[in-house]
């Protein structure tokens, strides 16, 4: 068993999905902010109601952006734990094998150990988005 086979791709992809969702909603929210800034142009009697309407939805969208970001970070962190655990497990397993089999399971060595997940891990692995 090679180390790469044990990487939790689904978790990494899910993290990316959440981060992408957060960015998309943030973009949509910026359009809403632009719209809201023009509310006074609609007249003094309605400007307050319009601002409240946009404010309510900006608030909802901000909450989704924060949640998406947090979910993405949580999944990234989980993936990091899996990777670290996987590397340790593989090393432990390898140490138990006869020397003749030791080389066999290293046919797909990891050239750049994944120890930090500050950058996108799928990019580090050359995984297409």
């Amino acid at each position, binding site marked *: 068993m090679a180390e790469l086979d044990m990487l939790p791709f689904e978790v990494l992809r899910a993290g990316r999905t959440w981060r992408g969702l957060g960015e998309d909603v943030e973009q949509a929210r910026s*359009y809403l902010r632009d*719209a*809201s800034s023009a509310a006074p142009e*609609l007249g003094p009697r309605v400007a307050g109601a319009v601002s*409240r309407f946009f404010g309510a939805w900006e608030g909802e969208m901000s909450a989704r952006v924060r949640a998406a970001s947090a979910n993405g970070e949580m999944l990234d962190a989980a993936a990091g734990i899996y990777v670290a655990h996987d590397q340790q497990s593989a090393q432990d397993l390898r140490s138990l094998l006869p020397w003749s089999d030791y080389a066999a399971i290293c046919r797909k060595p990891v050239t750049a150990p994944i120890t930090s997940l500050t950058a996108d891990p799928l990019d580090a692995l050359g995984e297409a988005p």
Partner: protein
Amino acid sequence: MTGLEVTDPVPLPPFEVAPGGRAVTSGTRRCVQAMSATAQRMSSHTAPPGWDDAQAVTAQHVLTGTVRDLEAAEAALHTGLTVLDAYLDRTDELRAEHENHQSTRTQLSRDIADFRGQAAGHTAAERSDLAATAVALRGRVDDFDRQVSAWQERLTAAEDRLIAGLAKADTLKEGHGLVARAPDEAALLRQLADLDRSDPTTVATWWASLTRAEREALKMADPEAIGSLDGIAVADRDEANRLALDALRTHLDDKREAGTLTAADRDTLDKISTVQKALDRTDGLQIEGRVVTSYLLLFDPETANGDGFAAVAYGNPETADHVSINVPGLTSTVNTFGGVSQDALNVLRSASAQTDGSVASIAWLGYDAPDAEGILDPNRGERLTAKLDALGVGNEQKAAAGAAVHPEAGRANLTVIGHSYGSTTTGKAAGDFDMDSDNVVLVGSPGPGRGNVHASDLRGTVYVGSADDDPVTRLGNGGSIGLGVDPASAEFGAIRFRVENQEAFSLSGSGLLAGLENHVSYFDSRREMQEEGRALRDSASLGDIGKVVVDRGGEVDVVPGRTGSSIDWWGEQAQDHPSYRAAGAVGEAVTDHLRRRFLPGVGQ
């Protein structure tokens, strides 16, 4: 009490809804479109519809819950957009009424002041006449006061509807409730696909049959299709086209940030910038006391071998009393759209100053103007004819397509103004394809198209503006090559109006530049001349073009048609030029040389 008292009309309440309020709906529309795209993209990650019964499972699936919340927000914002759009449409009407009330009040106050002056020193003999005038004035004041009161009530009702409409869609719970009532986008797109798009009247009738929410949904689902579909209401086309333009700009800005912008992308960004500037010309603009709104009728940056198509209207052609369309000429592309859009705005200013009616002026680049290679497309006139009908401003379409959207709109007085090669396109449209306009104006024309040998060959009243020292106007001679006869000739029989030369033309140096300057000065305004340090006057041609646009063509400054041949004119120019004189060149050779220079490839 003398019986001669007349009270002042009530003060007109201020109208504080700015035309810039449309930024609210355009921003909301972009937001809803982005939310919709996000929700659709994420739907593959959510629990499928079959899981709906397993509430406990789906309720715990966070991504499914998040996407459904986004759909709820989208539905609520869509509802908000619909009521905001209705409010802005209503306030556009109220703004126009407010402007009318302002004029009425000004006149009424003036009449009352005059009356009071007369009443102050009246004689007994004048009393009965004055008393009758006082009764009439009091009646006018009462009418005015009632109208203002009704206007105020309509404004308040519109405001109340907006406030109540927004309050029904400002919580997540309400948003979830609105999802089921949102327009069926897929069904609407199927209707669009099945529609006979070749018939603007059918399209207009279908569009008018949709609810406001359905129209909004379609604009966001497929803005390119709605923005370019002939028969769709002008205001809706404008919103859809702006949405498509914004989306394209955002996409290209992202590419620029990623460092992947190509040369073609940069060209497209240049086109977007040019069209945006044309649209922004009306920011805060009022002409003759009327707010001017711009409409993006057409934007396709890729067609015509990359030259692109664009059309911008200043004023709404569906409701205006007078509509003009400027058709530009040789080498026009969307990158150079600033020129024809400035011309169209100048025409609007000139025309509006000469009428009490409303005017819309369109800058139209919807055909593939010849480029340096000058490949002549025989269908250009046909395309112009079709487009005019499609815009709902053609005489027949005004009664059908336009009326479906604006039943109150009457038939407009339509004038098509072709400049340079655009005059040839216009001439062909009016002559070969029965373009149905009231007036045709050909300025700086190299010919109205071969086959159109007399003004009566063109539909509508034909006006011609040709500066004597504009060399392009000397290219038409009715021979075997070229673009037809000289429409400024007496033989052609058009109404020729006066055009001033800027400077004298000659075949060398500054004389050539002067000739080109004459060719591009037909729409010069006082404002432009001042900016460029030239003589402070509106060009005579602009004033007369404005008269034609507002149906006062009988008042243009008519000058006699040309009687000499173009070839002789070129011969005279050659006499003063050492190279041509040395080569023994005669007028015809010079004509051919210049035709190749100005109209390469044409008629070869």
